[in-house]
């Protein structure tokens, strides 16, 4: 599914990702953990195509196709979905209008027909009820005035409707109380499928109690410094990131 090789990324003159390699096979969920400033968000933005992140070396491919050559909307059409750490507010655009426009733009890019309004509304109603989102909230401008937890639920809702192939969850647990964390995690777990892969970025182990990863990687100083099974996350929780400070330096 996703293959990153020796990736180097700079913002301005500052190199943030310094030779990162990572393979996430189809059907697997990988967790990426690391201290603040390790480059976790830089990686998620680089994979989704945000401007200002300059790839100076290496590659990132999705099912063999060069991701880095595509613009953000083309990546989305091929199945890349980034769940933002801080989802943006879009004043004046009702959530339903926005999601339907996104879905139909992706379908158009893939040469598929548009989803009609009634079919879309049915999809949205089902997804909202699973995530315990009041349907009327979807008529309001996207994320405007929503709480942190509501915004994260809206991200998962978009995911459920857009049905991406490769999901990046950037600090999805931040700002969530325990009830919201459970609802969001259930939403994410429902997306697990043999034809889909996920990269779960988190600072804390807590989220991984709910979303069980197949593999855990530690990112420090712009490189993967350790990889292992789910037990690695527990070990990190106990011993902290300090042990990797040296490896990262």
């Amino acid at each position, binding site marked *: 599914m996703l293959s990153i090789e020796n990736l180097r990324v700079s913002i301005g003159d500052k190199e943030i990702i310094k030779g990162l390699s990572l393979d996430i096979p189809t059907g697997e969920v990988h967790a990426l953990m690391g201290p603040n400033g390790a480059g976790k968000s830089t990686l998620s933005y680089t994979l989704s195509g945000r401007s200002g992140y300059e790839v100076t070396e290496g590659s990132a491919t999705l099912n063999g196709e060069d991701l880095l050559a595509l613009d953000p909307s083309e990546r989305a059409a091929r199945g890349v979905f980034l769940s933002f750490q801080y989802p943006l*507010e*879009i004043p*004046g655009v009702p959530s339903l209008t926005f999601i339907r426009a996104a879905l139909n*733009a992706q379908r158009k890019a893939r040469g598929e027909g548009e989803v009609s309004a009634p079919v879309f509304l049915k999809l949205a109603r089902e997804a909202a009820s699973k995530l315990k989102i009041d349907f009327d909230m979807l008529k309001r401008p996207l994320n405007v005035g929503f709480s942190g937890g509501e915004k994260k639920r809206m991200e998962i809702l978009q995911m459920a409707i857009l049905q991406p192939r490769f999901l990046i969850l950037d600090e999805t647990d931040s700002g969530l109380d325990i009830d919201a964390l459970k609802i969001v995690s259930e939403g994410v777990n429902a997306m697990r499928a043999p034809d889909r892969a996920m990269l779960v970025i988190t600072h804390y182990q807590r989220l991984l109690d709910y979303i069980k990863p197949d593999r855990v990687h530690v990112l420090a100083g712009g490189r993967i410094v350790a990889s292992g099974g789910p037990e690695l996350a527990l070990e990190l929780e106990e011993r902290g990131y300090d042990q990797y400070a040296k490896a990262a330096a």
Partner: protein
Amino acid sequence: MSLVKAIQTRDASALPGRRDEAWRYSDLKGVLRAIPEASPAAAAPQSPPPLAQVVADNEIVVVNGRSVVLRFVAVPGAPRTLRLRVVAEADHTAHSGLLALELPAGSDLTLIETYEGAGSGYVSDFGLAISMGEGARLERIVLLDEPADAVSVSQSEVELSPGARFRQTVIASGARLQRHETHVRHPGGGAEARLDGLYLLAGKRHADLTTVLTHAAPDGVTSQLTKGLVKDQARGVFQGRITVEEGADRTDARMGHHALLLNDGAEVDAKPELEIYADDVSCAHGNTVGSLDEEALFYIRSRGLPEAEARALLMEAFVGEVVDRIEHGTAQDAVRAWVAERLRGLS
């Protein structure tokens, strides 16, 4: 100093220019070195007007400053819709026109006013005097849809009476120099004024929305919202002045002007003024000029919308607030469609 005087006397020295405070940002004198010949008489256009979706029961067509069609069908007791088309069928000539509208007490009118140019390089001045009786209601939609090389100034004087409701939305797409002025005499006494505007500019177009409103007596309400999108080397001007005279207590006046510059080189000049000489008033104004939110753009693109569509979505949402305030349903839909079409040229 006025364009109409300069046209009537063919004397360019009568033009206002940047040395005149009210014309600082719209330098007519600098744009027009000489006044061209008078426009010939012409027939009413065969083409449908902009915002044709709105069905009007009355119609006035003014071509090159002369009224050529006057159709009035009274519908007793019912709200009426008047279409006023101010058309230029002129090629590098000049003309001016004048019209007065009287709304009797208790009447209810929707005015669809369009400025259309079939020719090119013309110079046009049009004046409209509107007087509203007690409790009269008027919603005025003004669409300035003219060629890029035209010079066009339209001025209106609006006289309200107590209890009247005047609502105005001006949508400007600019010209070589395009200016729409509204002067409102607000008598208070529960009268309400809404003075909205929208300018959508590209190329080298220039649009100037100027409003001058005076609260002369207590208990008046004014709400003003103007928004602008400016691209390329275009230039938008907003001048809004609200004066609350001494004794005009309990006046409630709000003014907002917000513009987005879509690239370097685009320009917006804003001069919001609130002059308050009464003690017990509630007044506020806000003025911002910025650019499209890059983070929001990336967010939208990351969900699958190509860049041009993402920009259009943000721009539509930005100007939507003004369109939403239009109360006449069909007119609102027609303006929304016209704006969406125009935004395609800006995204």
